[in-house]
């Protein structure tokens, strides 16, 4: 009973938003209706790359209800979407750079009229040569579509002398790895509504992870100052990173249309246009080498990592940075040399997806570490335990891990639970079965790469009746943030859960709290809530003590009540008394992440303030005649600090594992000659419940002293190591080494063929 003095922290509290969502009572973006609302529909680039000559809506004008076309000429502000860099215009002027890029928008009284009109708006264009392969884009004589070298951004991380050390190693492995796109497939597609208000201001309703990104973009596009724009996050039906940056683009388009026609404008994507034009996980290419001495001690790691960024840079620079920082894996290695590049191609721009540039390089790195153990003749887990990072060790960037590092224990947990010692492949008929391993670490929060954004605010307002409204700047997108943050508020104030209400973000109520990404919400908004609650707590507890006449003796506070001897008062009674005493019952909280010392020049220093960890064992069965891979069971262990809600943490584990499996085995987006061939759920295959493995999930709560109730971050770790664990299990089961994802039956069978 380690948490016996907590009322809500560490308890499997039911999701506060569950009932409304299950009953269909939650209002999503496309459920909202505004008087006089009209509809916008994108007119999209029909080819991979074009020079725009003319846009004509002559034929569209015959459609009943058609209001007009919107092009870049209607942009009142600046035609450059502010993300990391500003190379993506809200609407292209002379050149459209990827197939299905929004070139213009048709606006009409009804959705069907808008669709029809959009299909009749003609773009006259000249087709331009395009490039769709990032490795070709890096060649010297390639067509240049971005700068002098097609490189959006690049990083180098250098420690010791890895090239030299590699030559001196007794065992060296080298491998080339490729991974494909992953589509977020959130249930709710991109949706925004822009509503012009009577006073000339604008209210924007957006399905988004990052309402403040939407605010910045709408402000830039419309020329309205921040204080005349209010962004309200609608109940958001899934994000996974896909609603980090791009909702700002969609909302800006709606806003530009709304400003032009002075009507509320709805822009909701259908599944096909969402697939074709919205963010994805980057396809990747990596060449990795590891070297070890004769005793199995890792000595050197060399990585060349390339991300296919697509036509505009969007989040590529920071996705790349996270990947590069973690590229050597969670090991103690003296010599590291990592080079990473994000490259421009004429395809859909890629951005954030759960794991943010780490899963791709982790697939390469954890596969190769396994191969190195094979080469040395060591058990893959024993080899990792020998080299794993422990407290006081240094990461690839020279960061000394000072606390809360539980990866060694995680490895031991999954080793023991999976009975790894018996990892000898078994076989029944054509089916071969074995275990595979991987382990990972994940820097929680934005780290040095996004240090200027790493702060969060909270506003806590306690009403006279004891009900509490908490406003935060981070969002609920299905991951359970509202519940976890409510638990933190209730615990800190000693209110009951029913007293607390947190709802979707409204940018007019809280300061810019950065994006809801990087598994940072519990940590950042949680700490901001605690900071806001601290002075309130003091007032409430003093008042309660007065009411209970404790005369300085210790009272007991639990679950929304205050106890002393045989007396008790409820939170609501105490609040009424506080108001009676005219105490200040609202407070602001502001939390800023600690400083990081990372230097871009050499890639050395503290990259993140704290890391979460994971270890996975995949129990996999391969049909050697058909190449089908079935994941029977995943043993996973996570160190995410204190679990605020163990039930939700389990659920994050399940979702992350299945999503990782989807990327590893099933999901295969095909782009040929710059055009996407399967933008639908018929041919882009996601795993479903019948494909789900049995889950065996454990936690090791290594407390993080600066976390809210000593928590770290959970959202992304469960996905990252799944693919290499499966890959290593396939290798163990049937000797086929597969260095690309997805590992479809076709590829598995081909590789098995090579081995026989």
């Amino acid at each position, binding site marked *: 009973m380690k948490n016996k003095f907590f009322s809500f922290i560490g308890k499997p509290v039911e999701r506060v938003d569950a009932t409304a969502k299950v009953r269909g009572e939650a209002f999503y973006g496309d459920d909202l209706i505004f008087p006089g609302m009209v509809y916008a529909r994108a007119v999209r680039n029909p080819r991979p790359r074009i020079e725009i000559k003319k846009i004509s809506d002559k034929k569209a004008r015959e459609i009943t209800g058609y209001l007009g076309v919107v092009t870049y000429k209607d942009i009142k502000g600046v035609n450059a979407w502010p993300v990391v860099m500003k190379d993506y215009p809200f609407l292209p002027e002379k050149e459209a750079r990827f197939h299905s890029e929004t070139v213009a928008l048709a606006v009409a009284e009804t959705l069907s009229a808008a669709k029809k009109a959009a299909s009749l708006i003609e773009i006259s264009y000249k087709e331009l040569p395009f490039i769709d392969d990032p490795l070709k884009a890096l060649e010297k004589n390639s067509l240049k579509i971005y700068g002098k070298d097609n490189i959006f951004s690049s990083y180098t991380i250098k420690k010791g002398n890895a090239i030299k050390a590699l030559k001196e190693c007794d065992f060296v492995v080298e491998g080339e790895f490729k991974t494909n796109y992953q589509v977020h497939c959130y249930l709710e597609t991109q949706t925004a509504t822009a509503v012009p208000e009577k006073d000339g201001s604008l209210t924007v309703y957006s399905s988004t992870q990052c309402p403040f990104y939407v605010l910045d973009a709408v402000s830039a596009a419309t020329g309205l100052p921040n204080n005349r724009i209010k962004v309200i996050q609608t109940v958001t039906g899934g994000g996974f990173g896909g609603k980090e940056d791009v909702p700002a683009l969609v909302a800006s388009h709606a806003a530009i249309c709304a400003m032009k026609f002075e009507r509320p404008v709805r822009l909701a994507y*259908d599944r096909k246009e969402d697939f074709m034009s919205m963010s994805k996980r980057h396809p990747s290419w990596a060449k990795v080498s590891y070297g070890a001495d004769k005793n199995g001690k890792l000595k050197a790691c060399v990585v060349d990592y390339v991300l296919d960024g697509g036509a505009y840079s969007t989040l590529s620079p920071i996705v790349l940075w996270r990947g590069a920082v973690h590229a050597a894996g969670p090991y103690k290695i003296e010599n590291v040399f990592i080079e990473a590049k994000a490259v421009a191609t004429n395809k859909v721009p890629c951005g954030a997806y759960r794991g943010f540039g780490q899963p791709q390089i982790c697939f390469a790195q954890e596969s190769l570490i396994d191969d190195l153990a094979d080469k040395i003749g060591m058990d893959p887990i024993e080899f990792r335990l020998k080299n794993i990072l422990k407290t006081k060790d240094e990461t690839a960037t020279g960061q000394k891990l000072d606390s809360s590092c539980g990866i060694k224990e995680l490895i031991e947990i999954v080793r023991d639970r999976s009975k790894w010692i018996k990892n000898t492949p078994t076989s029944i008929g054509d089916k071969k079965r074995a275990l595979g391993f991987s382990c990972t670490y994940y820097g929680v929060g934005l780290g040095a790469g996004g240090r200027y954004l790493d702060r969060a605010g909270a506003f806590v307002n306690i009403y006279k009746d004891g009900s509490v409204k908490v406003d935060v700047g981070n969002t609920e997108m299905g991951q359970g943030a509202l519940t976890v943050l409510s638990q933190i508020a209730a615990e800190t104030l000693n209110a009951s859960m029913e007293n607390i209400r947190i709802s979707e973000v409204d940018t007019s109520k809280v300061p810019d709290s950065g994006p809801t990404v990087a598994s940072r919400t519990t940590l950042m908004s949680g700490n901001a809530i605690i900071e806001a609650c601290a002075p309130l707590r003091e007032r409430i507890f003093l008042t309660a003590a007065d009411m209970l006449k404790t005369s300085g003796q210790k009272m007991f506070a639990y679950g929304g009540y205050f106890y002393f001897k045989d007396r008790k008062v409820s939170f609501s009674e105490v609040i009424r008394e506080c108001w009676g005493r005219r105490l200040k019952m609202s407070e602001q909280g502001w939390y800023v992440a600690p400083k990081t010392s990372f230097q871009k020049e050499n890639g050395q220093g503290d990259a993140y303030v704290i890391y979460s960890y994971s270890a996975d064992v995949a129990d996999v069965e391969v049909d050697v005649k*058909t190449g089908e891979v079935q994941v029977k069971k995943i043993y996973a262990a996570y160190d995410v600090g204190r679990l605020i809600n163990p039930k939700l943490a389990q659920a994050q584990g399940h979702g992350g594992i299945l999503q990782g499996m989807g990327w590893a085995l099933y999901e295969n987006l095909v782009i040929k000659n710059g055009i996407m061939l399967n933008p639908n759920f018929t041919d882009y295959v996601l795993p479903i419940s019948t494909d789900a493995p049995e889950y065996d999930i454990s936690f090791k709560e290594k407390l993080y002293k600066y976390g809210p109730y000593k928590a770290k971050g959970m959202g992304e770790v469960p996905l990252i190591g799944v693919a290499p664990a499966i890959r290593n299990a396939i290798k163990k089961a049937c000797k086929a080494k597969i260095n690309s994802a997805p590992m479809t039956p076709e590829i598995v069978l081909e590789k098995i063929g090579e081995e026989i």
Partner: protein
Amino acid sequence: MPEYIEKYYTLKDLWKSVKKLPSDRKYLAGGTDLVISLSCGNDKSSVWLDISDIDRLKEIKEDGKNIFIGAAVKISELESNPLIKKWASALSECVKYYASPSIRNTATLGGNYANASPCADGVLALAALRAKVMLNLYDKRRVVDILSIVKGPKKIDLKKDELIEGFIVSKEERKSIFMKMMHRKRFGIAKAGLCMCYKLEKGKLRDVSISLSSVAPSVVRAKKTEEYLEGKNPSKAQTKACQLIREEISPLTDIRSTSDYRMRIVSVFLSRALCSI
């Protein structure tokens, strides 16, 4: 979007009024393909004729020689109907691999056939069952072999207004095996499929028919392999039959799989089917 949907309850009413409707008309049964075709912008018809509640089309019945399965019978009904389980078990077996439960409750066997997809699970079973299709045009009927009017993906040789009334399967005591390879365990489209109906007499195969999906422009029969297997011991004939069946097909590489993989799967399926007998 069609301007309106005209609903019918009897064939008589249908034939009485059909010619008066706008000429760009189309039949609607389950709608699980038609509505998708509409949202992809491929259906431009101005009126849909809803035939899903015409009684005759919902019948499953038998006479001395045959069973009749109406074209508007829902896929989910095939799973447990006793007549189908007894005389057309391949059709019952295909259901668990067929799309999702919600689609099965809406989609019809006639629609599966009319869509003329090379990966149609229902057609794969009907072909191995050597079913015939009953067509009806203005109350005049013709009965043809199931695959004889299927010309390729989405291409079926029907006259204007000609209606698929149902399917006829002769009552034969044959066993069946249904196999389907897809990208995940359920709710998937076939990368390749095989259905085999046969009798076993004193260890010898008799009356064999084998159909294949997703390896040609339409569902096809493997007639040379069928002929070869006639009178053979299933496990002894395995190697040669698997070789033969590969010679009968030349599948394409497309977004769902590769030519080579499809070849291999068809032969693995046949080998596994023959081993299981």
